[in-house]
């Protein structure tokens, strides 16, 4: 029986460091596609990119929320063994949230949005999408983006533009989003403004 012991980082110290720099670059340069240079192995419903992000950022001090298809004993055992992160049912209690598809993601506003005093206490959502490009083109603006940029990820939630605008409106509160696919990550911090068009 798979009890989740397999498939952690082979070199936890340096893989975590590399994974973190990838994620940090993604959030510091919103909309750019940053490759995980030292990839991890997929585990059950967890894609390789979700595994990389999970192992890089989570431990017993970071409550996490898992979407339905991740709520299986093999994934939960993997999370417990490799990170010790407590798994929470309510999105609003999660420091990080992992979802395998937009369909499994509640409305962004249901996650922890932080408070006006402590806006940092909000959820970072990690969403696996089919691809980071090839979808409808969107325009991005904001800190980390010189003038403006373009993104075209596939598999965004329905009404994403509206939900994101609501999230942006809450600033400094709000969630931050990491889209992962194809061995890479695209970061959308709460500061990024997203519009349709070219």
């Amino acid at each position, binding site marked *: 029986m798979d009890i989740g012991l397999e498939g952690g980082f082979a070199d936890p110290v340096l893989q975590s*460091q590399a994974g973190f720099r990838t994620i940090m670059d993604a959030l510091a340069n919103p909309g750019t596609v940053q490759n995980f240079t030292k990839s991890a192995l997929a585990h059950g419903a967890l894609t390789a990119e979700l595994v990389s992000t999970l192992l890089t950022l989570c431990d017993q001090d970071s409550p996490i929320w898992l979407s339905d298809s991740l709520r299986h004993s093999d994934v939960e055992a993997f999370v417990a063994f490799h990170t010790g992160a407590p798994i929470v049912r309510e999105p609003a209690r999660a420091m990080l949230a992992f979802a395998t598809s937009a369909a499994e993601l509640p409305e962004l506003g249901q996650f922890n949005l932080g408070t006006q005093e402590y806006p940092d206490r909000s959820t970072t959502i990690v969403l696996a999408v089919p691809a980071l490009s090839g979808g409808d083109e969107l325009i991005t603006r904001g800190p980390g983006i010189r003038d403006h940029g373009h993104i075209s990820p596939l598999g965004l939630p329905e009404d994403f533009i509206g939900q994101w605008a609501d999230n942006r409106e809450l600033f400094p509160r709000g969630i931050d989003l990491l889209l992962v696919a194809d061995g890479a990550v695209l970061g959308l911090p709460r500061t990024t403004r997203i519009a349709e068009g070219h």
Partner: protein
Amino acid sequence: MNAVAQYNFAYLDEQTKRMIRRAILKAIAIPGYQVPFSSREMPMPYGWGTGGVQVTASIIGPQDVLKVIDQGADDTTNAVSIRAFFAKVAQVETTTHTADATIIQTRHRIPEKPLGRGQILVYQVPIPEPLRFLEPRETETRKMHALEEYGLMHVKLYEDIARHGRIATTYAYPVKVEGRYVMDPSPTPKFDNPKMHMSEALQLFGAGREHRIYAVPPHTEVVSLDFEDHPFEIQHFEEPCALCGAEQVYLDEVILDDRGGHMYVCSDTDNCEERREAGHVGVLGTPQEAAE
């Protein structure tokens, strides 16, 4: 007695790094907001760069090239000490050349050479709270930031004008980031403030004793506070660097004798050396070949 500890890569244990990394990501997502983090005791004193060291230790990897400056110079003792620390615990390559560094840890200066995409500037911060000298209580300043209530800061700056005819803050000059958070740029001279605005580099700030991390992402608006009738202006030096002849750079004053003799030399030693290697000579400098 216990065996001597085997220290982890970059000194910090992995759990501490993860905690700091999560704080850094939130800091980047909320530019200028001070994220509380559980600062650790470091093997150097609080107030001597433990915040910067913890940030650097949490981001640095074997591919990085590290530069450490204090007062703009690579050779000041605390910069030497911190550079040696990372060379030892992270076995990373170090450099004094601004352009070659991927991570630059600094105290009190921003290098003269504009930083580029992919570079990270890590500031050591003693008092991260720009409102601290106006209101010593954290419980109060937190509310002020939450409510975007920065009137007190403007009152202080305006009192300066009333008393001295100008804003008398010369370093740690407060800035507003992306039109929202008022931020302390660390005790850099206000000369360096414009370099923070729309920088290509990622700027990370670590305050160890005060348990705060904050950030300015690349291409982010950083505006020094001022008034329409008293616009922000930087220091101007009357004379160029005596060694390399540079103008529009920040200078250190060096006392030459006890009769008031003094000269000005570049604070950014790497920039000065590169200029001299390129053939620039100041009034008291010597051409490079002759100096051999």
